[in-house]
């Protein structure tokens, strides 16, 4: 047990110190931060100069009255179109609109702009006109405020689930969490391939096996790499969480959304055995080939298997309780991602959760045993490839 711990610790630090690992762990969040910054800049640089208004009908209310409704961008009323045009040319306003004399009968409005006017202008003009029309219509004030700008306060209530937050979050969280976990597996799990090929070809593995059993060696390596993957996830999710909390304080609409910690726990519980299966597969590939590049080709097969839930993504979202969705969440290669997606969208029966995890964990234990057997076989064939037939033959004879 102690030796397994030593191996795990050594493997962890061996790869954690690598520049490539540090770059991936810190690079991805920094990339996300950069993306957030770009989005923020785009929104903050949004056109917010006033919009001019030329009223040829006399129905428009004073802009300062309208300003109480918190219009953005603000309005400036010009007495003639010439004045408004001059203001537009001087870039004092981003656009101006003309309410023609026949507006009340035609409903036509003319908007003049130079360059890109804000997308909000159209809605704001509509609100302004509606508010102006209501102000002079004699409609009771409280009713007018309902019909006017900002009067519509829609609440969406789902009859399917009683979840807090909203449906987008129920899908997006597990999707991105699953994606991060997959990325972590494919990056750090790939280290296993390299480690095994190197150790096999330079015979370090033989020295190690005079100190520990193949199972101890693999378990140690696996534990080290799982911790490495979890470090990656921890850093990434911490960045995400902090980023989300910062955004939530600035965007009131998101205040109802609570970070789904239960989902993170679920993700970790499912992805640890999945990680082990992937790393074992990489180890078997590593023991069967003589160069890392050969192994990477074989690793592509596993990536294809892991990508199956993505092919059925639409089905998982629209029919999370369908037979296919249930099957996907039971098959060890596809279960982690499928379970996560379904967890966000439906209530998974406990038996499915238990069976899914047991099948996954059982496969993980079996693959560790399998690696031990292949290791004994692969040790003899250094400098040579192992065929699938040889692997199966070796396992049968052990």
């Amino acid at each position, binding site marked *: 047990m102690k*030796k397994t711990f*030593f*191996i795990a610790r*050594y493997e962890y630090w*061996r790869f954690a110190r690598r520049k490539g690992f540090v770059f991936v762990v810190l690079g991805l969040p920094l990339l996300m931060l950069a993306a957030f910054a770009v989005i923020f800049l785009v929104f903050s640089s949004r056109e917010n100069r006033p919009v001019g208004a030329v009223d040829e009908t006399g129905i428009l209310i004073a802009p300062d009255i309208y300003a109480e409704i918190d219009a953005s961008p603000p309005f400036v009323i010009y007495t003639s179109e010439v004045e408004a045009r001059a203001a537009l040319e001087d870039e004092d306003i981003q656009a101006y609109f003309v309410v023609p004399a026949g507006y009340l009968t035609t409903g036509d409005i003319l908007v003049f702009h130079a360059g890109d006017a804000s997308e909000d202008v159209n809605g704001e003009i509509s609100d302004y006109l509606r508010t102006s029309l209501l102000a002079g219509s004699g409609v009771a004030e409280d009713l007018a405020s309902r019909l006017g700008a900002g009067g519509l306060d829609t609440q969406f209530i789902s009859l399917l689930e009683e979840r807090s937050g909203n449906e987008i979050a129920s899908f997006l969280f597990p999707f991105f969490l699953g994606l991060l976990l997959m990325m972590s597996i494919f990056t750090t799990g790939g280290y296993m391939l390299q480690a095994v090929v*190197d150790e096999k*070809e*330079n*015979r*370090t593995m*033989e*020295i*190690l*096996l*005079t*100190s*520990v*059993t193949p199972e101890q060696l693999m378990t140690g390596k696996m534990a080290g790499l799982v911790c490495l993957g979890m470090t990656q996830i921890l850093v990434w999710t911490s960045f995400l969480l902090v980023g989300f909390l910062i955004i939530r304080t600035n965007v009131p609409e998101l205040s109802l959304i609570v970070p789904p910690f239960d989902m993170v726990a679920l993700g970790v519980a499912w992805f640890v055995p999945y990680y082990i299966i992937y790393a074992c597969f990489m180890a078997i590939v590593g023991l069967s080939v003589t160069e890392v590049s050969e192994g990477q080709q074989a690793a592509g097969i596993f990536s294809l298997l892991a990508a199956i839930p993505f092919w059925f993504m639409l089905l998982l979202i629209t029919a999370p309780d369908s037979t296919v969705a249930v099957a996907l969440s039971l098959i060890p290669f596809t279960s982690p991602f499928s379970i996560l997606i379904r967890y966000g969208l439906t209530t998974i029966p406990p038996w499915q959760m238990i069976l899914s995890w047991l099948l996954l964990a059982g496969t993980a234990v079996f693959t560790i045993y399998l690696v031990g057997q292949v290791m*004994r076989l692969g*040790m*003899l064939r*250094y400098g040579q490839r192992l065929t699938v037939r040889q692997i199966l033959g070796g396992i049968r004879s*052990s």
Partner: protein
Amino acid sequence: MATVQVKQVSKRFGSTQAVDDVSLEIAPGEIFGLLGPNGAGKTTLIRIILDIIRPDTGKIAVFGGPMDEAKKNRIGYLPEERGLYADIKLMSVILYLASLKGIDRKEAATRAEAYLRQLDLWAYRDKHLKELSRGMHQKAQFIVTILHDPDLIIVDEPFSGLDPVNTRLIRNMILGLRDEGKCIIMSTHQMHQVEEMCDRIALIHRGQKVLAGPVMAVRRQFAKNTVEISGSGPLNTLPEVEHARQINGTWHVTLAEGITPQRYLRVLARHEEISVEHFTVALPRLNDIFISMVGADAAEEENMTVMPTEPAAEMTSIEKGVGG
């Protein structure tokens, strides 16, 4: 009690019989030479002893029984192909591998320092292994092999890549370990090292043990009725001599059938006109025995170290002036 007992062990890979009914016993305090051409089955046998692979039939007993974790801590192994982790610092690798042998980190560091200084590697302790020369690698790996003070040491080509000075250093360390009572199994193609260092040998060919025993006994077994003699007088024309040729002033004399070296020596002593300065019973080199057993082709394949300038043999050396 033998440190290693190999009883009728066989191992087959597909159509290849890698090890075929081999039995050996290796005791503490001896250096046992495991010889054989490439692909003979030596490495497979070593791996079976180390429990890296399991035999199809037969039994292995190490320290009196089957392998377990505690016994693994008492074994040091230097494999033939060496590399270690290229991107890790020397001291770090040594301490890591020592930790897997159950050695406390502090103790391992103390021992590592002593060995690194002894083998002139202390200045390189913080270098990555990829920065070290092949000889340095070799010495580093030898340190890894013996740092945990193992009772069974298996070294495969321990001198490859070493210059004469370092070869001598490692050789003396191995001999010192033997004197401490360690059991050492050495596989090498450097036959002169085997002759100088090994107490016993076994020659493996095509998976089978074709020859085994103490080095001197094996050489005697293959000795032809030949002596090397120098001196003056009709050394080469006596009736006891079947054939003689002179090389660098020394007569290489093949004795007639039924004539022993001792009898020939007595005959020489009776001849007053003969003066003997040097008399040696010629024993074949292990190199020659190896070639005769496994064939010249295999020997060429092995690139064995042959020492043509040395005398052919020197088991019994008598320096005596006779009748002079």
